[in-house]
């Protein structure tokens, strides 16, 4: 065996093995987008009613909750003005939570399910969980239109604060992406992440202002517990959504917390979750093909 001379100049580019990211951002985006687009197309055209079925799920869930919590156990009672447009508030929160659930729950199995890609082809591994988040984002965009239409029908008037919507969604997407990266990487090694996450996301549903507005939560909880509750970044995001998009009679996230500065805590958590997710995924990306 002859060994090539130990010179590095005049050689091509080094092959470094699989990574989470890439230098070729164009390909990264095209891959993510096209995988998400194809999945979306499949769901869209997969059945006769296509997109309607996508919509029916959150809407039915909304209808059940709405009837139950306004007619049987009335949670709007005693909430005063913050209970205005309860239907729109509830629907907005449900739509955001549906996104969260699709993005994180869908990502858990994503890397393992795409085993044939991971083992057969070189591409930036992060494309896989990101395409799941992107797919959920497509649904979110359509569902948000439904929320706005519903709100207008219920009597909500367009407000300047609707402009906050992109920012609110951005925070939710960042947080969900972090969790999606974390879960998809961990699931490769620990298969019980799936049932664990199902339970945890149920807990998060009830620990966020979906059914009950933040005002009611604040009344019932001690200040320490409430502080703990607000560490859940979804709490602030959902509340801000209700405030900015539906009605100003319900407090904004900052008002509920008492000050703008207090808002930094959940925001910091959002970015910390994202950073943790990226770190874990990035570390596992080089050997994920072997661990499968």
């Amino acid at each position, binding site marked *: 065996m002859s060994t090539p001379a130990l010179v590095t100049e005049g050689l091509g580019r080094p092959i470094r093995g699989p990574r989470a990211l890439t230098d070729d951002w164009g390909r990264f985006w095209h891959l993510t987008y096209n995988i998400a687009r194809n999945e979306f197309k499949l769901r869209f055209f997969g059945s006769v009613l296509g997109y309607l079925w996508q919509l029916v799920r959150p809407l039915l869930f909304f209808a059940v909750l709405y009837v139950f919590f306004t007619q049987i156990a009335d949670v709007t009672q005693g909430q005063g003005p913050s209970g205005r447009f309860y239907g729109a508030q509830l629907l907005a929160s449900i739509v955001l939570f549906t996104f969260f659930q699709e993005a994180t729950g869908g990502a858990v199995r994503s890397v393992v399910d795409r085993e044939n890609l991971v083992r057969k082809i*070189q591409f930036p591994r992060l494309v896989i969980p990101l395409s799941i988040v992107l797919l959920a984002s497509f649904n979110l965009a359509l569902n948000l239109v439904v929320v706005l239409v519903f709100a207008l029908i219920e009597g909500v008037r367009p407000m300047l604060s609707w402009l906050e919507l992109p920012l609110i969604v951005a925070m939710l997407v960042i947080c969900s992406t972090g969790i999606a990266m974390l879960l998809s990487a961990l699931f490769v090694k620990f298969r019980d992440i799936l049932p664990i996450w199902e339970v945890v996301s149920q807990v998060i549903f009830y620990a966020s202002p979906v059914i009950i507005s933040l005002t009611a939560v604040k009344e019932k909880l001690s200040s320490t517990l409430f502080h703990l509750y607000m560490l859940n970044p979804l709490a602030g995001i959902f509340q801000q959504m209700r405030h900015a998009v539906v009605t100003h009679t319900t407090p904004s996230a900052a008002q509920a917390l008492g000050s703008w500065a207090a808002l930094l805590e959940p925001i910091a958590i959002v970015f910390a979750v994202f950073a943790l997710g990226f770190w874990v995924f990035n570390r596992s990306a080089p050997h994920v093909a072997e661990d499968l």
Partner: protein
Amino acid sequence: MSQAPAGSPLPIVVQSVSKSFRIPEERSHTLKERALHPMRRTRNETFKALQEVSFDVRSGEFFGIAGRNGSGKSTLLKCLAGIYGVDSGRIWMNGRLSTFIELGVGFNADLAARDNVVLNGIMMGLSPREARARYDAVIDFAELREFEELKLKNYSSGMHVRLAFAVAIQVDAEILLVDEVLAVGDAAFQQKCFDVFNEMRDDGRTIVFVTHDMGALNRFCHRALLLERGEPVHLGEPHEVADRYLEINFGRDPEAAAASVAEGRGGDGEARILEVWAENELGERQGSLAQGRRMTLKARVSFAVDVEDPNASVYVLNDEHVAVLVATSARDAEHSGQFAAGEEAVFEFSFENVLAPGRYNPLFTLAHRGAGLDLMDRLEGAFSFVTTAVDPLGGVVELPVEARVTRDTASPTRVST
């Protein structure tokens, strides 16, 4: 070893690459197992898949990586492709890379051809615009124009492979990494694949081909590397590599060794079969021969001692290792003459190609005067050819058959053949 000419770096340089896999004795897939047995995970066995592999590939070269199953050849290809990271050593590539490790990766059975072609093209490194622009060329190459609206799940496996291969070759890669699993299609398709690869090589592209088929290695490769248990054993001419491969495998595999003794493999070595090949009716060397035409199998031999009236036999084995055709020179050329030490001779077997479409491995033997049992040499697996047919009926051989129908007034129609 080759020196890179100034200004044009070698397409592939591999330097002391090692790669090992950890094989946990008991794989813990759940948190509970980890929590209950925190110490267990330390007992990992490592499997050294590649050890200190170095080589480089020159521009425009068809480079073979040979070895039997588990020798690390596919792992090496995956390291080159960047699918596995290496433990130590380095790899450099110069040029756009395309991997043919498996065709149609990421194809979605519920989508039509267009979406799959575009996505697969992007996977292979095209931009969406390039992928869309090449769609027509892909469909035409795959000959699937009339089925383009069909979902992939309604494709036959042959159509599926054709589409996938068509996408893969549309990617303008300068370096192609080809795995042998590609060669699973029918013989005619395999031949088409290799024809395309040969064209690409003639265009000056560099091809790395992983195989354990020594026939393919001999036919296509300029140079080859032989791996055995992850270690490079031999780097050189394909026929040298093929010889080492046969030596290692038949030397180690007890079953094959026993079989080879029973069949008298190797003979006494007083003559050697140097080379075997096939020619078409025009006398051109071919790996692919049309059914119904005349073809010739030839073997060039060299004598180490003076030999009188040697004879050669050929056993044309099909995929099931059945000798479909056996021929010997002992019949037609019993007195082949006197050959002196150092002389060479060519034995020819010419026949009408009546073989069913498929791949055949001719086994040649060279024997002393007599019934052909006193062997001087035996060569198997050094060469294979493919028979192609336009409209095969399905028999093992297709001989000229005359079919006739006559009406019998008393009884039902009888077809006599």
